[in-house]
């Protein structure tokens, strides 16, 4: 628990404990951007390590990195592109759900757009895998659906 006794908010740090027991530090001003964290701080006080049962050590550092940049006002398109460049689809999904849990609006909106961009013009099978869903249509329903959306067969990246 590393916390400075100074009354200035800008130098105050909050301790966050992930679901798998690791502890990370974040500036109080950055923690303010995550409404869930802020609510927990209001309820439990800022001297305590805030428990985040549904966020894990894999994703929290990335979220902290994003908000560290945000409080200095340095978030640019280039930074955002770099931020997601090396993330695979599953990692983006996990961050997306974590940002939703933390009520971290800015990151959540950015990741929503990124997911939409990743799905753009992809085939039905790709989207199925992405959402982890099974095809529950009968062959007749599938062929009817295919007919219904024949108008959209333009620029599909993979073969249907």
């Amino acid at each position: 628990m590393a916390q400075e006794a100074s009354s200035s908010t800008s130098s105050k740090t909050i301790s966050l404990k992930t679901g798998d027991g690791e502890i990370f530090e974040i500036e109080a001003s950055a923690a303010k951007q995550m409404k869930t964290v802020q609510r927990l701080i209001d309820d439990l006080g800022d001297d305590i390590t805030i428990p985040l049962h549904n966020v894990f050590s894999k994703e929290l550092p990335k979220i902290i990195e994003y908000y560290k940049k945000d409080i200095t006002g340095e978030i640019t398109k280039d930074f955002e592109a770099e931020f997601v460049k090396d993330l695979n689809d599953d990692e983006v999904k996990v961050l997306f759900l974590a940002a939703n849990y933390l009520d971290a609006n800015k990151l959540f909106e950015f990741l929503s757009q990124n997911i939409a961009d990743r799905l753009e013009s992809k085939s039905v099978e790709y989207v199925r895998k992405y959402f982890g869903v099974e095809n529950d249509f009968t062959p007749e329903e599938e062929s009817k659906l295919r007919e219904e959306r024949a108008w959209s067969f333009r620029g599909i990246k993979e073969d249907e």
Partner: protein
Amino acid sequence: MVMAIASIESTMASSSSSSSILTMHHDIIHTHILTRLDATTLASTSATCSHLRHLCRDNHLWKKMAATTWPSLLDPAICHVISTFPNGHRSIFSDSFPALHYYSSHSNHPLSPPSSELISAVDIHYKGKPVFSRIRQTKTEKNMFLSSPLWIEIMEPNELVPMPVKYVRKEEEWIKHLEDNLCLSWILIDPTGKRSMNVSSQKSVSVRRHWLTRDVEILFSVIMEGETRRATEMVQCMVKVTCCGKVGGELHVREVNLVMENMDGGNVSGREGVGILMKAMEFGDRKKVGEEGEMKMRFERFLNLVRERRERKFRRKKQWDGFSMVVAFVVCVWFCYLAGF
């Protein structure tokens, strides 16, 4: 944003539970992902499973998409008309998003009674951004409309609408620039039959300067099957955009109108034109344009057909004139002979 900490905490097993993302989070997927997808991707997503299909059928998603793709459809009167369609705004996409292909003979198919009104929703995009949107309701039962050449004018007389396109002097580059960056969609909506279609080639098929007025004429065209009579076996549905401007200033749109031409190069009447349009709307195929420049190729082929017909007609006329002269000469000689000369 949906916040259900308790429920998420209790059901979320691990950080990589992608298999349950839809079940647990369909509301955030619907509100935050589906709303950001483009029309093609939304259509693909709706074919993945029944749950996503149900989410993707939300008319609000398609209404928002239609308004982004064609701002003219934001008009309240049009929104109301489209809301009466069986699949609402989704049917606008399936009917008007792809290009219209209407070539095989359907003239023997019985047609539903023609609509008394057609609504035109026109949008011009420059470099992907909308720069002009207008709607026009056309009554198709008036005698004047039926007996005159088919003509739908979108703008008011003497109206000029500026577009953020610079008017420059250098011909070829600028004309190529307009060809590459201007897109027009003309959606014809039949409120009675609850169908629609796009009668534009999206990209222009020709950009030229009028030899006298120096106005710029930008043409968009779709070739379709007409009636079985010779001159209207195939017809060209053409949108002509006339622009003017001062060098260095902005281009101003002066006229945007829809006409229909037959293979003799003449105009198709309102009565015949509406009949052809209604048939195209009911029986035409909607599918993607095959290759880049396909619509331009069809336009040029049609122009060649018109030219060939004109030349054939001219040759036939010359032959006939020659023949008539010979006959007249022979008849004259015969009369002279009979008269005893």
